C-alpha cells in the first residue's frame, strides 16, 4: 500500500490505445497520464479562442471538436482520440485556431511541460506531432518504399525494384565483331549456351545477334553462313545500365517489343544480356505477356482477351510492391500498345493511309498515368496533302475501327465524344492549332474547364512530329497569354480538395460530411492541374506530371520544395488508389477511383489529410500567382 497517487487506468488505457501515445514506454505514458486534466464542454461551448494563449495538448476522449482558423474558416473536425493544440505549443505562440465543442465533449488536456518532455524523450511521439505536413508525407512515402524494399529482401517472388544486376548470373560475356562470320557466331553461341551475342565494333556496341535473327534472317531465307554478322544482327540495340530496376527494364522491353536487353556497367561495357524470360521468371507475373499478346493480337477479340488480364496483372504488381508511378507507366504502356495494334490491324484491312497522320491521345494516357477503367480520348492530326472530301472517309473508318476496338478492350467510348470518330477531332495541324488558339485567345471559363485535358497530348502512332509541332506552337502561345493562364489557374483552383476526415466521413470545406472519397477528382486531378498550369506558363514540353513538376521547379516557376512535396503527395495518393483498386479486383468488383473513407487505415487517413492540405496550399498559391488572387 502506498500513499503515492496512481495512474487512472481509464486515462492511461485510453491514451495507450491511440497514436502517438501508443509509442510511449510505460514511464513516459505514466508521466503524460498524470499530466492530464479532464474537462467537459457542452455542445457549442468554446474551448480555446483564436489568439489566446494555449497551455495544453488536448485529446478528445468522447464527443467532437471543430477547429476554425482564426475563428472563421473551417479547418478540421476531430473525434475520439484526435488531438489539437500542439502547433501553438511547439511554436510557443497564441492559438491560431478556435476550438469549439461540436458535441458534448469530454476532453483530456495534457499540460505543456509533459507534452514537451514526451517530445524530447520519444522520437516517434515527436514525429507524430510534426507540424510540417510535407515532411510527414515524405516520410510516409519513404516508409512505404522501405516496406517494399523490406519485403523485396525477404520474398523470393519479389524484386521488381531490385536492380537488373541481380538477374545476372555470370558476368563474362562472349561477343563477336561485325565482321565475324555468321557460322562462327552461331558456333560460339552454341558452345557458350547463350541465345544472344553482343556485337562489338571497336569500343561501341554495334548490335546483338539473337537466336531469332539466326532463324529468321539466316536459316529461313537460306543465307550463306559465311556472310558477316553485321548483315543479320539487330543493330543499335537498346541497353540498360545494371542498376536499372527490373521493372523499368521490363517497361522498356514491353514498349519496344524486344526480348533481349544488353546490360552495361556504369562505363558502358556490356556485362550481360537479360531476356524477357529471365524477368518473367523473377516477377512471376503475366505483366509482360499482356504487352506481347496485345502487340501480336490478330483481331480485336484477341486484343480484348489480352487486356482483360490487366486487372489481375495490376493486382499482382501491387502485391509485389511495385510503386504507383511504375504501375501507371505499365498500365499506360499496355494502353498505348492497344491503340497501336488496333490501328495496325485497321490499316491492314483498309489499306495504307492516303496521307501521313498522327494518332494523338489526351489526358492520363498522354501523361503515362493511366489507371484502370479509363475511357478513350483521342484524335487524328492530318499531315501534308490532306483533302477532306478525298481522304476523310478513310480516316473516319479507321477511327471507327480504333474506337470500337478500344471499347471492346475495356477503354470505354469517351462520354464527352473526344474521339477521332468525331469529325471535330479529325483535323489538319492548322485546324487543330486554330482550335487551341480559340481557347487561348478568347478564354471562357466553361470552355477552359472542358479543354484542359487537350493540353496533355502525346503521339501514339504515325507522325509524332505533327503532335510535337502542335504542342510547341500551342504552349508557346499559352505562355505568352496572361489572361489565358489566369483562366487555367482558376479552373485548377475550382476543385474543392477535402479538408480531411471526420470519423468515417470525408470533411469538406463547407462542413459537408461526404461518404465517398473520389481519389481521382479530389486529390489526383488537382495535382495534375497544378503541374499543367506551370507547364503552360513556361512552355514545358513534358506531359507527365512528375516531369512537369521537376521542369517547373527548374524553370523557377514552382518552388523546389513545393515541387518535391507535390511529387510526394502525387505518389502517395496514387499509391492509395492502386492499393484500393487491387483490393477491388481481389474482391471481384470493378476497379474505381471512389472509396469509402471508413475503409482507409489510420495511416492513409492521416497522410491523405496532409496531402490534401499541401494541395490546397499550392492551389491557393497558384491562384495568387496566376489569377491575381481575384477569385
Amino acid at each position, binding site marked *: 500500500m502506498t500513499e503515492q497517487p496512481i495512474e*487512472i487506468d481509464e486515462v492511461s488505457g485510453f491514451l495507450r490505445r491511440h497514436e502517438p501515445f501508443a509509442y510511449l514506454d510505460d514511464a513516459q505514458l505514466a508521466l503524460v497520464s498524470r499530466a492530464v486534466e479532464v474537462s467537459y464542454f457542452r455542445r457549442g461551448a468554446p474551448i480555446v479562442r483564436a489568439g489566446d494563449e494555449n497551455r495544453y495538448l488536448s485529446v478528445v476522449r468522447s464527443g467532437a471538436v471543430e477547429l476554425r482558423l482564426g475563428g472563421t474558416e473551417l479547418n478540421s473536425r476531430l473525434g475520439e482520440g484526435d488531438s489539437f493544440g500542439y502547433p501553438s505549443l511547439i511554436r510557443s505562440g497564441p492559438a491560431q485556431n478556435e476550438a469549439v465543442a461540436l*458535441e458534448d465533449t469530454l476532453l483530456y488536456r495534457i499540460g505543456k511541460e509533459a507534452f514537451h518532455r514526451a517530445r524530447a524523450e520519444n522520437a516517434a511521439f515527436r514525429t507524430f506531432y510534426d507540424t510540417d505536413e510535407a515532411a510527414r508525407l515524405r516520410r510516409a512515402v519513404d516508409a512505404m518504399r522501405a516496406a517494399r524494399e523490406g519485403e523485396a529482401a525477404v520474398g523470393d517472388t519479389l524484386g521488381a525494384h531490385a536492380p537488373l544486376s541481380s538477374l545476372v548470373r555470370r558476368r563474362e560475356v562472349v561477343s563477336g565483331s561485325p565482321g565475324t562470320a555468321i557460322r562462327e557466331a552461331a558456333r560460339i553461341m552454341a558452345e557458350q549456351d547463350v541465345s544472344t551475342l553482343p556485337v562489338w565494333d571497336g569500343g561501341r556496341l554495334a548490335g546483338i545477334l539473337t537466336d531469332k535473327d539466326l532463324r529468321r534472317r539466316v536459316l529461313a531465307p537460306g543465307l550463306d553462313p559465311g556472310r558477316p554478322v553485321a548483315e543479320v544482327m539487330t543493330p543499335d540495340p537498346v541497353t540498360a545500365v545494371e542498376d536499372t530496376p527490373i521493372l523499368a527494364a521490363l517497361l522498356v522491353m514491353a514498349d519496344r517489343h524486344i526480348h533481349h536487353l544488353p546490360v552495361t556497367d556504369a562505363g558502358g561495357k556490356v556485362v550481360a544480356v537479360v531476356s524477357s524470360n529471365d524477368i518473367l521468371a523473377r516477377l512471376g507475373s503475366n505483366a509482360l505477356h499482356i504487352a506481347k499478346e496485345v502487340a501480336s493480337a490478330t483481331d480485336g477479340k484477341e486484343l480484348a482477351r489480352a487486356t482483360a488480364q490487366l486487372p489481375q496483372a495490376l493486382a499482382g504488381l501491387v502485391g509485389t510492391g511495385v510503386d504507383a508511378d511504375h504501375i501507371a507507366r505499365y498500365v499506360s504502356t499496355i494502353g498505348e500498345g492497344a491503340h497501336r495494334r488496333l490501328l495496325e490491324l485497321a490499316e491492314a484491312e483498309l489499306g495504307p493511309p492516303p496521307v501521313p497522320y498522327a494518332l494523338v491521345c489526351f489526358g492520363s494516357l498522354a501523361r503515362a498515368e493511366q489507371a484502370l477503367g479509363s475511357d478513350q480520348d483521342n484524335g487524328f492530326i492530318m499531315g501534308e496533302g490532306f483533302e477532306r472530301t478525298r481522304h476523310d472517309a478513310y480516316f473516319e473508318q479507321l477511327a471507327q475501327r480504333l474506337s470500337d476496338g478500344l471499347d471492346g478492350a475495356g477503354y470505354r467510348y469517351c462520354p464527352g465524344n473526344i474521339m477521332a470518330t468525331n469529325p471535330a477531332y479529325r483535323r489538319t495541324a492548322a485546324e487543330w492549332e486554330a482550335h487551341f488558339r480559340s481557347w487561348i485567345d478568347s478564354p471562357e471559363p466553361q470552355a477552359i474547364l472542358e479543354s484542359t485535358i487537350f493540353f496533355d497530348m502525346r503521339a501514339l502512332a504515325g507522325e509524332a512530329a505533327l503532335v510535337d509541332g502542335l504542342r510547341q506552337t500551342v504552349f508557346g502561345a499559352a505562355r505568352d497569354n496572361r489572361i489565358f493562364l489566369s483562366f487555367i489557374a482558376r479552373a485548377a483552383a475550382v476543385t474543392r480538395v477535402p479538408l480531411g476526415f471526420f470519423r468515417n466521413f470525408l470533411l469538406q470545406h463547407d462542413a459537408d460530411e461526404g461518404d465517398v472519397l473520389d481519389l481521382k477528382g479530389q486529390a489526383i486531378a488537382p495535382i495534375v492541374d497544378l503541374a499543367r498550369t506551370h507547364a503552360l506558363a513556361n512552355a514545358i514540353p513534358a506531359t507527365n506530371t512528375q516531369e512537369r513538376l521537376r521542369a517547373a521547379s527548374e524553370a523557377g516557376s514552382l518552388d523546389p520544395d513545393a515541387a518535391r512535396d507535390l511529387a510526394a503527395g502525387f505518389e502517395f495518393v496514387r499509391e492509395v488508389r492502386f492499393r484500393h483498386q487491387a483490393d477491388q479486383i481481389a474482391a471481384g468488383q470493378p476497379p474505381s477511383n471512389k472509396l469509402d473513407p471508413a475503409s482507409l487505415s489510420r495511416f492513409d487517413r492521416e497522410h491523405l489529410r496532409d496531402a490534401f492540405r499541401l494541395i490546397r496550399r499550392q492551389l491557393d498559391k497558384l491562384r495568387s500567382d496566376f489569377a491575381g488572387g481575384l477569385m
Partner: protein
Amino acid sequence: MIFGSREWRFARRFAKAAQVAPAGPLRAYYEAGHAHFSTPVEAVEMIAIDLETDGLDFAESAILEAGLVGMSAGRIRGDAALRIRFRPAGALSERSVVVHRITDDALADALPEEEALPLLLGHLAGKVPVAHFADIEAGFLDAACRRVYGAPFVAPFVCTMQLESRWFPRTRAADGLRLAKLRAGYRLPAYRAHDGVTDALACAELLLAQIAHRGARELVLDDLLRR
C-alpha cells in the same frame, strides 16, 4: 454565515462532531475545516470518492476499497488519484470477490481498517467529497469512524444522483438514475464498473457534465451540496 441557514446548520454538526473526536486522524480531519458554502464552484477543492464494500449494511458490511480522484478548478486531475485497500476482519463473501474482482492476492497490500482510515481521512480533509448516491459513502465512513474513533464523520457531500433529480427533474425508468445510465445521457464514455478509482472518475466526470448542462453562471458550493 446566516443564522439558521443550511451552512449554519452544517457548521454546527461539523463543530459538534469535532468536539467528540479524539486526538488523532479524525481530530486532524476536523481541524482542517470545511469550505464555505458561498465559495464559487470553480474555487472548491473536491474529491470524488467511491467505496467498494462487502454489502450494503453500514454497520455489518466492510469497506474493501476506496477509490479517490481529485478535482480542482472545475477539472479532474490525473495526478490526484488514489486507491486505498481495506482488509476486512472476516473472510470475503464469494459475491464480493466476483463483483469487485478483489482476490486474496489483492488483499496482500490491503491495510486493516484502523490503518486505512487515517490515510483516507488525510485525503478528505478540507475537501468536498463527491459521490454517486453519497448516502452510501457517508454512511460507511460514519460507521467506520464510530467503530475506530467512537465519533461521527461529518462532511459536505455532493451527491451526483441527487443533483440530477434536483436539477433535471423528469420521469425516469426505475434504474434511470444509475451512474452508467446518466453518463450515457451526457455522452460520456462507458467504463467498466466496480473499480473504485474508475467509479470515482466516472462520478467526477458526471459532475462536470451536470454543471456544464446546468449552464448557470456563478454557481456556488451550496447549489451542489446534498440536501
